[in-house]
Structure formats: C-alpha cells, structure tokens
C-alpha cells in the first residue's frame, strides 16, 4: 500500500509539497459513482438579460420540470448521496415553487447553494435563509461599480444585488458568496470586489467567463487579456483560500503553482448539469447536443444517465492530452476548459483558447470554419430581430399548401405596385421611400426605427 501524508485531504487546501501531485486528480479523472455536486438550472426564466448569460436565459420553457418531477430528482440525488446542488437558471427564485423545492432538498439531505441576482431577496427571504445551515446563497455581481456591472447585467442590477446583500447581512447571514465573472472590464476591480464582500461579511467567489450561451457573442470583447490573466493569477495566489473560484481557473495553473482546488475538468466525472427541462449535460457551460447525456425523464432517471450514458463513459476514459501532451505544463492545466475550446471552434484535445503559454492564440488564429453555435436560446425577445424576418401586415395570401410557410410560396413575380420596395437592403434611403403602411406602422409603434427598416424590406416578400 502506498501511503501519502495527505490521505485525508480537504478540498481547497493547497496540496503539501511532499504529496504526489495529481494522484487524487487521476482517481477523479475516471469518474465517481455519483457527482460530488451538480448544477441544476431550475428555469430559463429571468428578469435580466445579461450579455454573457451561459444558458441564454430569459423566457421560461413550457416543458420545464414540474414541482413533482423536481422532487423526484431530489429523491434520486439523496439516494445517490450527492452532497449538494448548485441551483441556478435563469433566475431560480422566480419559480413559484422555488422555496418549496429548497426546503424539500434540505429535508432530504441534499444541500443547496443557489445563485441569484437578488431580485427576490427582500428582508423576509433573507431572514429565512439566515436560519438554515443547509442553504448557501451566491449573489451575482459583475462590476464593483454600477457602470461596469450594469453594462453587462443590465440597468439597475448593481443596485438590486447590493440591496440583497444588505438584507442578508442585516439578517445575520454570514459567509454568503459574492459571485463575479471575471472580464476585461472588471479585473482592475479585484480589490474593490473584495472590499464589497468584506463589507457584507460575504466570501468572494471569482469565476471564469466562458464563451457559452450568449457569452459566445461577447467573449472576444469581454474575456481577460493575456496580461490581465497574470494579474488575476497573482491576485488569486495572494488571497489563497479566502477567495473561492469554483475550480474554474485551473488553466492558469500553468503559470506556476496550482491554485487551491481540484484543478481538473470535472465534466461528467464529478459534476454535470441538469437543465430546466431535465436534460443532463456534461457541464453547465456546455449546453449543446454534443454534450447531452440524457434526460431525467428517461427510464431510470438521473441515476441511469449518470451511470450508463455513453457520453459520460467517454469523458471518463483516460485522455491522451492530444496536442498538449508534449507541453511541459500539461500536468498543471490538463488542457484547460472543454467548453471554452468547443465554443471557440478549437479541437477538444488541443490547448485552451486562454492558454497562458500562448498556445491558445495561435490555435484560435488557425481555426477554420465557424465555431459551433449554442443550440438553445431562451433570450427575451425585446431586442429587434437581428436578421430579416417575415412579417404579416396588410394583405396576406393564404399558403398554397397547409404546411407551406415559405413567404415566397406561390409567387411568380412581385406585384408591380410593390416592386419599388424590393430594393436590396443596402440601397438608401429606405425611409424616404416609406410607403403608407410603413408610416402607419411607425405611428402605431412609435419606436424601434431600426426594426422598421428591417421590416421594410422583409415586407416586400409578402405584400
């Protein structure tokens, strides 16, 4: 029997120099009988529209798991001895049965940590939370100042988060989490975030921006610059275990000593995601068919998905390291984040796009074709459509077949009276040509000029 001095190790503690590094990591690489914890997005509904939302949340999905189905999942997690669930969304607290489900989980020995923007954390909710040992709260804030935060999370969201933290602190809840996604804009605010956490008796939690969900659209302008990554790494090393990271910066370990935590990609091995409709993905940042393992509504439920999914079996197979194998830092970073690679179009067995040895930048430059797109979008529909969409205003011809929805169905030529509107979009000035229906539309809506212009050239297909 080989003994190591850290036979009993506490996660988050820095491995002692004398231990065999990576030993535990090797065990976990092959997967566990049940997740240590998992992320459970309870709803895609959200009052906010954060530009980097990893689940493209906004609107509730009508297929959302019912209260009874959620309770059945909790029963399974209890049987599997999953220690706790990280509940998120969307904004989980907008589910009417949110508190009922939290109570049900803790009564069944499944701990709860939930992430919220704070919208429902008034004094009464804060007092209720302060009274429970089994519930932890993470308040999301992505800027120490309103200007930095609200640019990403939306107007008023900074004030909402601070009010929630004030309520938790007043209720005597100590050690709740202030959770920050690190961006190019907020890395200069690291000390300011720490000061906010200290002010409310909270613990700071910093996590990595992933190009997942709507994050794929903004990643290139929001992700930290190379020199900022170094600043972040040094700051994390200096603050050690005072600051949580959800193990999300293990790609930075290639700078030198490992950061506290497991330092491996736990996807399908020690963690996974259950989404609002019960789909089980390898990781919360990988909502894509490539990483879909099954659904809790399938026969055998979540336990069967975890134990028998082909996808998870393949993730638990020893990995070769691929293009990174020859790199001297592979044992530190293990090739980085699978989701970050996938949604930036990089091969999964190559370097992370933010590889601190600089291999990511050259790999990104060599990407041919387009990166895979997030496949679900529950975003609010308040913004103007980005592409031309058919609209149905004025005369409408019935489709030639019941199932034929093509706007061009049955057309042989545009009616002469409308031909002047058929100019290509780039030909100005559309508004000077605005026909009477266009003016009527503007009077009715009174806003969204951009939207009108797009409508003006899609309309020509129809009328």
């Amino acid at each position: 029997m080989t003994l190591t001095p850290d036979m009993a190790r506490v996660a988050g503690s820095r491995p002692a120099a004398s231990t065999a590094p990576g030993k535990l990591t090797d065990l976990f690489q092959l997967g566990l009988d049940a997740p240590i914890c998992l992320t459970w997005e309870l709803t895609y509904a959200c009052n906010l529209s954060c530009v980097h939302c990893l689940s493209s949340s906004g609107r509730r999905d009508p297929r959302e798991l019912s209260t009874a189905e959620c309770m059945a999942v909790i029963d399974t997690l209890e049987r599997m001895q999953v220690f706790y669930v990280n509940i998120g969304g969307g904004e989980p607290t907008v589910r009417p049965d949110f508190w009922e489900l939290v109570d049900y989980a803790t009564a069944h020995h499944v701990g709860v940590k939930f992430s919220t923007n704070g919208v429902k954390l008034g004094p009464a909710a804060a007092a209720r939370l302060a009274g429970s040992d089994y519930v932890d709260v993470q308040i999301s804030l992505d800027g120490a100042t309103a200007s930095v935060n609200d640019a990403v999370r939306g107007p008023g969201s900074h004030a909402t988060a601070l009010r929630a933290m004030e309520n938790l602190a007043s209720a005597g809840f100590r050690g709740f989490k202030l959770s920050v996604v690190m961006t190019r804009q907020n890395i200069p605010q690291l000390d300011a975030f720490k000061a906010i956490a200290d002010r409310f008796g909270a613990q700071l939690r910093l996590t990595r921006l992933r190009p997942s969900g709507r994050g794929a659209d903004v990643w290139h302008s929001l992700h930290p610059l190379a020199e900022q990554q170094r600043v972040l790494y040094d700051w994390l090393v200096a603050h050690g275990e005072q600051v949580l990271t959800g193990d999300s910066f293990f790609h930075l370990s290639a700078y030198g000593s490992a950061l506290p935590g497991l330092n491996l990609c736990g996807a399908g091995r020690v963690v996974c995601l259950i989404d609002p409709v019960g789909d089980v993905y390898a990781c919360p940042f990988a909502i894509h068919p490539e990483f879909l393992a099954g659904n809790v509504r399938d026969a055998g439920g979540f336990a069967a998905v975890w134990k028998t999914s082909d996808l998870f079996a393949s993730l638990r197979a020893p990995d070769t390291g691929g293009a990174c194998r020859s790199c001297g830092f592979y044992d530190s970073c293990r090739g980085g984040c699978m989701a970050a690679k996938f949604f930036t179009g990089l091969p999964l067995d190559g370097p992370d796009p933010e590889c601190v040895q600089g291999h990511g930048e050259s790999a990104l430059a060599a990407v041919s074709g387009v990166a895979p797109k997030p496949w679900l979008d529950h975003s609010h529909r308040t913004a103007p459509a980005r592409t031309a969409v058919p609209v149905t205003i004025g005369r409408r011809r019935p489709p030639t077949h019941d199932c034929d929805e093509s706007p061009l169905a049955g057309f042989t030529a545009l009616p002469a009276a409308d031909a002047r509107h058929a100019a290509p979009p780039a030909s100005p000035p559309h508004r000077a040509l605005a026909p009477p229906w266009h003016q009527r539309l503007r009077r009715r809506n009174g806003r969204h000029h951009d939207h009108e212009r797009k409508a003006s050239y899609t309309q020509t297909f129809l009328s």
Partner: protein
Amino acid sequence: MRPEPFGALLYHFGTRRLSFLKNQRVLAVVRSLADHPSARAACAAAGVPDAELPVYARALAVLADSHMISERTVA
C-alpha cells in the same frame, strides 16, 4: 460520508468543505473511531503498522481541524 472505490468522500454541511479519504484503511479507521477508546486503538484494530502511525495521526488531525471528526462528548 460516501464510500468510493478509492476510499470515501466526506462533506461537512456546516463548513461546506469536502474531504477525501484516499484508501480503504483510513476509511476503516475513521468509521471505527467511535467504537474504540482512542485513535491509536482504532488504528491498531484496522491493522495500521506502528511505523505508519504518524501518517495516520496527521490525517486524523487534518480531519479534526476541519471539523469532520470531533472529540466525543461524555454522555
């Protein structure tokens, strides 16, 4: 405490910390602590050689520091 092929996982709901028992023998020691008058006796019963006692003592100290195990209270 959740048994695993390599040993066990321990989670403390109060401190929200996770610990790992990295082999079956240390798991046997931890499981039987309550049944023995001392940690040394628990180690002996689990077959820990004397030469390895300091290693086990350190492991148990780590668990005690993180409140995973605590001194028994006399009823």
